[in-house]
């Protein structure tokens, strides 16, 4: 059990090993007469561009971090504590943007708002606007877009955390004479901190791993540096060095977060908490709450969808056989990977729980690295590894390599959900079941499974949607003739055919919406 668990986790970390080996053994591909060796690519990048890239990356993370905090925590707070018009809809609708890939949001945002786009053209031609508006292709535009796509991560965890705790604490706070704002800042927020941090960390890892949306905004981030080293200088080894730097940065943040969380352990929630009774807002307060949620939803989902539908109607619905193939490939890959990931996650989570082994818990933590790994870097890692083993030809004829990449990238998302679910099943429950004569399998079947159902479902959905949206690893590792909706969207964007990509992009969103809506329903029922 222990050994196979470690084996599985290590298998999933092999590409990182591949990267490290490539960095150590790698020789740059031969370039022209003045081709540079790896050292000089790195020196050149350091001297001229890397500082810029790092500053841009940090600014972007900072802006998105603040953005997702405000929208995620703000909306979660309103939904968890108050009753106001529209709340029943906002509660689940606020997670809908999860289904929109950042690169699709970027295409829409830029196309709609740029100087040559419909809004500015209309303003110039009909209202005689002469001054130039801020360029959507900018750092600010990217912050906005990522915030709109990623705040649901924070919203989801913050909401759960507020619901679990705030009822009692708000009552205590009231008896202490705190206003509700004071109570929020002094009591509730610090207690929800680990959850909020996790949400923000997830969002920022997406930002760090992104290349498509960032480059569409004309921004140059650390990922740009990796690609420049690799593509322009043809220096895989320098690219790998840079990837490892990015990776160690992410690991440091992770360590810091774990460390913080370890110091801040609060007593677990009792199982017999009263459900919170949301306070009814009236008058202007109700209006503000409504506006906050409504505007979030409009800018993050309704408006982008309207633009997308408009593009589709402009293009017309041409669903030829190619379209159906994309759809079929996307669906089957996502479903297959989701099931596989959940099986692996269940196994790893149970192994850690039953053996109580610190090693296994550490091994499971190690898997989170995959999530922060930029898809393209992961792709290079896998290529290096397969190259070393001389089995890279497998990837052209079997979908296995691609699924393996997806597992590395997304297993941690599933694992986290299932681990959280398992913590709710206390050892005392196991003990009681055993006392009552339940056999182990019976216990899993009759006690754990019903209790875990929601976590398993959530894990399935997360992985499904993530695979549906994944692009760089799919581009690099897919077998013959396996174009997915995401690949088609990307190829059409590369061919600069924005209107034609509307249909596959819309399909990604719509298919992604199904599980998101299921998830929202589960959320609504939980109340």
């Amino acid at each position: 059990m222990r050994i196979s668990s470690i084996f599985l986790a290590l298998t999933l970390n092999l590409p990182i090993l591949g990267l490290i080996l490539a960095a150590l053994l790698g020789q740059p591909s031969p370039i022209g007469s003045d081709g540079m060796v790896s050292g000089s690519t790195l020196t050149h990048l350091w001297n001229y561009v890397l500082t810029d890239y790092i500053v841009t990356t940090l600014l972007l993370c900072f802006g998105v971090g603040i953005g997702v905090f405000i929208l995620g925590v703000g909306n979660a707070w309103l939904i968890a504590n108050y009753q106001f018009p529209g709340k029943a809809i906002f509660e689940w609708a606020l997670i809908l943007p999860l289904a929109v890939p950042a690169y699709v949001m970027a295409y829409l945002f830029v196309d709609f708002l740029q100087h040559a786009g419909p809004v500015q053209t209309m303003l110039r031609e009909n209202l005689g606007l002469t001054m130039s508006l801020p360029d959507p292709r900018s750092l600010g535009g990217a912050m906005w877009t990522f915030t709109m796509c990623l705040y649901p991560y924070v919203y989801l965890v913050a909401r759960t955390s507020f619901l679990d705790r705030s009822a009692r604490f708000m009552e205590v706070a009231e008896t202490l004479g705190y206003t509700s704002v004071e109570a929020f800042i002094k009591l509730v927020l610090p207690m929800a901190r680990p959850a909020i941090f996790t949400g923000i960390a997830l969002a920022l890892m997406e930002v760090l791993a992104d290349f498509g949306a960032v480059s569409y905004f004309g921004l140059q981030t650390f990922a740009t540096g990796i690609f420049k080293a690799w593509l322009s200088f043809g220096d895989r080894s320098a690219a790998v060095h840079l990837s490892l730097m990015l990776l160690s940065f992410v690991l440091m943040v992770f360590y810091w977060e774990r460390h913080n969380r370890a110091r801040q352990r609060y007593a677990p929630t009792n199982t017999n908490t009263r459900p919170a009774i949301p306070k009814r807002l009236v008058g202007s307060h109700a209006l503000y709450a409504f506006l906050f949620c409504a505007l979030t939803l409009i800018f993050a989902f309704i408006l982008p969808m309207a633009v997308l539908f408009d593009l589709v109607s402009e293009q017309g619905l041409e669903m030829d056989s190619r379209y159906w193939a994309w759809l079929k490939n996307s669906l089957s890959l996502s479903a297959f990977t989701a099931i596989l990931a959940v099986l692996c996650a269940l196994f790893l989570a149970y192994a850690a729980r039953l053996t109580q082994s610190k090693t296994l818990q550490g091994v499971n933590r190690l898997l989170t690295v995959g999530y922060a790994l930029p898809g393209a870097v992961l792709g290079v890692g896998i290529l290096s590894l397969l190259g070393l083993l001389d089995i890279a030809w497998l990837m052209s004829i079997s979908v296995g390599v691609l699924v393996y990449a997806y597992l590395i990238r997304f297993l941690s998302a599933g694992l986290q959900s299932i681990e959280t679910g398992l913590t709710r099943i206390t050892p005392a429950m196991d003990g009681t079941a055993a006392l009552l004569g339940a056999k182990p399998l019976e216990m899993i079947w009759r006690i754990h499974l019903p209790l875990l159902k929601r976590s398993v479902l959530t894990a399935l959905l997360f992985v499904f949607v993530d695979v549906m949206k994944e692009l760089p690893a799919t581009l690099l590792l897919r077998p013959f003739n396996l174009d997915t909706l995401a690949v088609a969207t990307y190829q059409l964007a590369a061919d600069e055919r924005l209107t034609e990509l509307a249909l596959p992009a819309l399909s990604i969103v719509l298919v992604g919406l199904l599980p998101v809506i299921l998830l929202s329903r589960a959320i609504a029922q939980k109340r």
Partner: protein
Amino acid sequence: MHEIRWAHSSVLKKISLIPSLVFGLAITLGSSPNHAAEPNAVLNLYSARHYQTDEALYANFTKSTGIKINRIEADDNALLERLNSEGAKSPADVILLVDAARLWRAQVNGMFRPIQSKVLDQRIPANLRAKADADGTTWFGFSTRARIMVYNKDRIKPDDVNTYEKLADPINKGKVCTRSGSHPYMLSLVGALIERDGTAATEKWAKGMVANMARAPKGGDTDQIRAVASGECAVALTNSYYLARLMRSTKPEDIAALAKLGHIWPNQNAGGVHINISGGGVAKNAPNPQAAVKFLEYLASDAAQIYLADGNNEWPVVAGVKLDNPALKALGPYQVEKVSVAAIGRNQVAAQRILDQAGFR
């Protein structure tokens, strides 16, 4: 608790089988039968051509030869990395790339198998294919595209921007737009300029370009054209086929944009316009080499050349192919630079270095 843990373990032994099952399943599932098919009944194509209009081109080959095409499309370098990792067991038969520097790099890295084909030697001009040696030729160009300028008729006099060099002249301050300096199309242009004007002059040119930019480089070539039409930029560099595509568009907003635009064939009396090549060759370890050669010869046929010209608005390489593309006809004949593909390939790293040093993002 201890007992419970012990009691679990037999069940969990069974569960531990899951991972191994999972991986076995993943590898075997989806293995396509084509790999084992009769040699030369299929063709495995690695293509960096990202043009939707190529579908018909491939379908026509399968229809006329019965050879099924398996395709992977990705960026040039992603394909080359993949080939690199796959090594001798790579299933690739034909590699198609879309940039001269990349073709050259693939050749230098030994990705191609030299072939001898009378058809290809005869139909493809010598300057648009690799230099042949005793074993044959490694790659062939099948279509070309020119790096031209579009300008806003209200904002600029065409004579002020009729060479690449003039784009960097202080008279054009605040007027110029391009895509990113890391893009292969820009790198190949700069690589050609290094060959034509020398390194020092190109460094100065890059600095002048940066000083003249209307906005930081961003977006694709189509974005540049639209920004020129809307007046955000006065002049921009673009590949010819993006302009031709716009010229053939029937959308009202495209027609309105086009009315504001003029285009320039740069350097017509000063070294010629920079052209880039889309081409390819047989992969070094091709399992279906005969099908591969057949496919390359097909690409040089009149029918395929017309597909390339009509579909993606590229110029055919075969002399005397009858064009039926009004946009290409309107863009007209032009004088082409005399810079070798090898020089452009060799200069790529230097080009990136110069652009980085000048702050050309």
